[in-house]
């Protein structure tokens, strides 16, 4: 299968290898939540809702020095083409929940909110590859919206390696090609990687290229998220008036 057309250099959907899908972020989509956001990467659409910091529900988990961060990832039944019933606590969701929790926890200044709990709920509305990345980006937006202090913006993007070419932001078709899929989460300004996952094998020389590409993708997403946040802050401040 030619995932990159050797003659035109375009991918199946018309992107160049180093191009990301169209991204879009929207803040404040869940009225009840303290913070919420919708994030789209192409056809992948994810909604994030953040509750808290609030009283710890299960007193046994309460920590005196820091906040408890919880995360729940789920996929809507209608998120994929075949409309299969998605069980909630399956292995994959549990794993992704854990990964996202750890990634977000690395950025949240949990010590500022002791004895409290922060819940992050992520729901995939439409899945087309890169749900993990989209979830992390949505969670970042939602956390910022909830006014939860963070070290830096966490953004995530994936990259793969198909047809001897590093590809940015794989969609479902490319993802199912069975090639390596590197998902990276970064603290952009701090230049730190908080998440790095890969399926399949990749030689180390290629890996650095692919990783670099994914990091570039993260930077681009961070710029966009920054813009969205600033725009939102500006709107809130202006509406509130002095």
């Amino acid at each position, binding site marked *: 299968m030619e995932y990159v057309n050797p*003659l035109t250099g375009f991918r199946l959907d018309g992107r160049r290898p180093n191009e990301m899908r169209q991204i879009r972020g929207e803040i404040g989509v869940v009225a009840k939540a303290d913070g919420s956001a919708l994030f789209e990467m192409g056809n992948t659409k994810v909604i994030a809702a953040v509750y808290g910091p609030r009283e710890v529900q299960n007193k046994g988990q309460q920590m005196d020095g820091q906040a408890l961060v919880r995360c729940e990832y789920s996929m809507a039944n209608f998120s994929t083409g075949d409309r299969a019933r998605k069980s909630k606590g399956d292995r994959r969701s549990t794993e992704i929940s854990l990964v996202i929790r750890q990634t977000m926890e690395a950025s949240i200044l949990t010590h500022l909110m002791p004895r409290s709990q922060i819940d992050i709920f992520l729901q995939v509305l439409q899945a*087309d590859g890169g749900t993990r990345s989209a979830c992390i980006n949505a969670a970042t937006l939602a956390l910022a919206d909830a006014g939860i202090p963070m070290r830096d913006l966490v953004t995530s993007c994936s990259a793969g390696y198909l047809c001897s070419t590093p590809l940015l932001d794989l969609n479902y078709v490319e993802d199912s090609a069975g090639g390596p899929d590197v998902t990276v989460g970064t603290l952009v300004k701090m230049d730190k990687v908080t998440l790095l996952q890969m399926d399949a094998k990749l030689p180390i020389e290629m890996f650095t290229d692919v990783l670099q590409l994914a990091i570039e993708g993260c930077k681009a997403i961070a710029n966009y998220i920054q813009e969205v946040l600033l725009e939102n802050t500006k709107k809130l401040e202006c509406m509130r008036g002095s």
Partner: protein
Amino acid sequence: MLQSKSFVKKTKQGRVVKVVREHYLRDDIYCGSVICKVCDTSSARLSSAASAILIIDTNVVLHQIDLLENPAINNVVVLSVVLEEVRNKNMAVYNRIKALCTNAMKNFFVFSNEHHRDTYVKEMVGESPNDRNDRAIRVAAHWYQSHLGGSTQILLITNDRENKKKAIEEGLSAETVESYVRSLEQPNLLDLVVIPTSLDVVKEEFDDPRPSKRKVIYHEHKPMSEITSGLLHRIYHQGKLRVNRYNPFEGYVGSESIGDEIVIYGRVNMNRAFDGDIVAVELLPQDQWTEKSLIVVDDDEDEEDDVHLVPSSVDDAPSNANVAKAFAGSAPTVSSRPIGRVIGIIKRNWSSYCGSLEPMPLPASNGGVAHALFISKDRRIPKIRIQTRQIGNLVDKRIIVAVDSWDCSSKYPFGHYVRTIGKIGDRETESEVVLIENDINSRPFSTQVLACLPPLPWSLSSDDLANPHREDLRHLRVFSVDPPGCKDIDDALHCTPFANGNFEVGVHIADVTNFVHPGTPLDEEAAQRGTSVYLVEKRIDMLPKPLTEDICSLRSDVERLAFSVIWEMTPNAEIISTRYTKSIIKSCAALSYVEAQARMDDSRMIDPLTTDLRNLNTLAKIMRQRRIERGALTLASAEVKFQIDTETHDPLDIGMYQIREANQMIEEFMLAGNVSVAEKILRHFPLCSLLRRHPIPTKEMLEPLLCTAAAVGLDLDISSSKTLADSLDHAVGDDPYFNKLIRILATRCMTQAVYFSSGDLTPAEFHHYGLAAPLYTHFTSPIRRYADVIVHRLLAAALEIAKLPPIFLDGPRLTEIADNLNYRHRNAQMASRASVELHTLIYFRNRPMDTEARIVKMKANGFIVFVPKFGIEGPVYLTSKGDKGTDWTVDEAHQRVTNTSTNVSYCALQTVKIHLEVVEPQPHRPKLELTLINM
């Protein structure tokens, strides 16, 4: 700009799934014309010199690819929609158009119309995909027209009448292929134009030479929907048709659904399928499962066996397991094998074929359109009907012809002339035919490939010396032994005795991977060629000459880089330790087998080199003995050797290749080296090592051997390679050649060894039957085999000298490489054989002679003889053709043919005297004929 593509798809499990895919439309796709002022012209390919820019539609690419490849056709825009359609319909054509688009000599430009903002076309309601694509092509043509603003003419080339009409209505210029080619005023080009047989072509252009015969000859193919449902319900069976190389009226379809081969007899049952086509087959009722393979009276073509070289393995020989059974009676017997007929073709395997025109009287008016029948060299291919305007030119030429269509009312398929190779019978022409037939690339290396070579003259650099991974072994007494005149010396040896009586034995192999780096054009070219090809009069190299003959070749008295395997061995040839290293060596002597043998045999010579040779020979004999005890087969082949006139390249003499002890000595150490390397790489890379295996022959494959052996009262035990080897050892007849003959017969029953990736099979399947080795690979000839290059890289990675190239991690890709190597290897062998056959024919052209031959197989009207002196095999007819009422009866069980009236009888393995002569039954068709000299 974003467009969503959404469609509904049915999955394999039968569930219906809606698929939504993004489709980005861009504004940064350039038109590719040099003269364009708006676009970035850095990658432009369309020149300003040509009068028009051509835009072609899918069918033009699919059917007229031979025309497009002609240098006269230039400045073509290939739209991505066209490319995509071509890929879906015919992968072979797709690869060719792809090559055209990247060819620097041709100005073919790919325009991504599907992703361009202005040329993307959305499917309209009720529009068929075909109409939509045609519209997309027209829209793109329009875009070009307005984009380039009339500075160049945009010409849409289509054979679709409707499309052309619409295009002209929309204000585009459009032409059919034929009218465009006519406008170029190069009459010879017209031969390349495929005349479409579809309905929208004017009928009068199509005049069948025999209108009265325009009746349905073949069954209509079943529609695809019916085939699919038939396959699903197991009424039909799908498989690849393989036509018997020696009997084009017999084909086999390996079917997974019934787990057996379905035999197909006759052209009517084959129903226009070609060798290699994927077909759907329907089984005939069981009572019609009759054998008709012996005497084929299906057709008016005279098909008979030619004299040919002795097959060296079962892959080269006709699949004739059933032939022996059919000897029992002259009446057709009911076969146990399913027999079927083709009812539809799922995927065509048409390509172009090499051959000549059937001799025919020249038409009176020269220059007009003439119809001719083309006969392929490959006998599996039926005759092909072509149209030409240059019949006078082509009659005595070897030409290439491509197939276009095969109508069910036509006896033969229609095709078109592609190009001329040369005069029939000409040695150069025929050699080229051999290369083309075996898909061997004999073109000179491209400049990109040559650019990868190190600067010449090459010599050892200080960097090489300083390399910590490279051991300096220049002090060792290294030497090589090869056939005389060998220039590509892959391997060299050394043997140093230790004080404790042990020996240090080293095998030094040219370090090709030091010069051929993965991913370079040089590497890709070598991977594609796969192997060097040895023809009688020339060699087609895998690597460019400077590498093959100089830089890599381990010539004497020069410092060369090598990859060494060094053992410590006891005098009993037990390996105590093995070590692998990159090295620098300086060979002290490049001996030929004859020289080496002479040195060893001459007891007066006691110089160190000769002593080394003798030591090695002693070790090799022990190793060989041990190997044979393990069950390795000593097989024999009937290789022949030509003496070639250096001026004319014509063969002067011909004879069997003599195998000496020196040959066996070198072979033994090469085998040992290969085995050691195979063990090493497999230990490090259990999933991606390239190994070589030799499957255990099945009982059916050995059937002909057993049959012949039984006829002469020999009992062979084939339960394992060990027992077979022992039985072969005991098969001693009354004459010295008997044993060798049996071995030759045994060899031809084996399949060939094949390369494979260790990740694809289980360790039990790694076994090499012929060598009785659990693991084997090729390491010792990297100059002439690409497999060895791969193994060198694996070994270097295993030693952590170099990193493993990423390609090894791509399982399917590795399998693809192994398959290609097998294909190339086999083709190279076939080409060598064909070359020998060709030279045999040339040799006998002026030298009719009488010689001795051995009968190897009985036929209904004669027998097949083997001529040991020349290594050839061919039929001897006891009765003349067409004479059905014979006095000869065949006794299958005893492989004996007896004349009932004269009581003369012949039996298998018997020696007979025959006469060899080249005859020319038809002009330009010389062939070697064997006739029995009555004693």
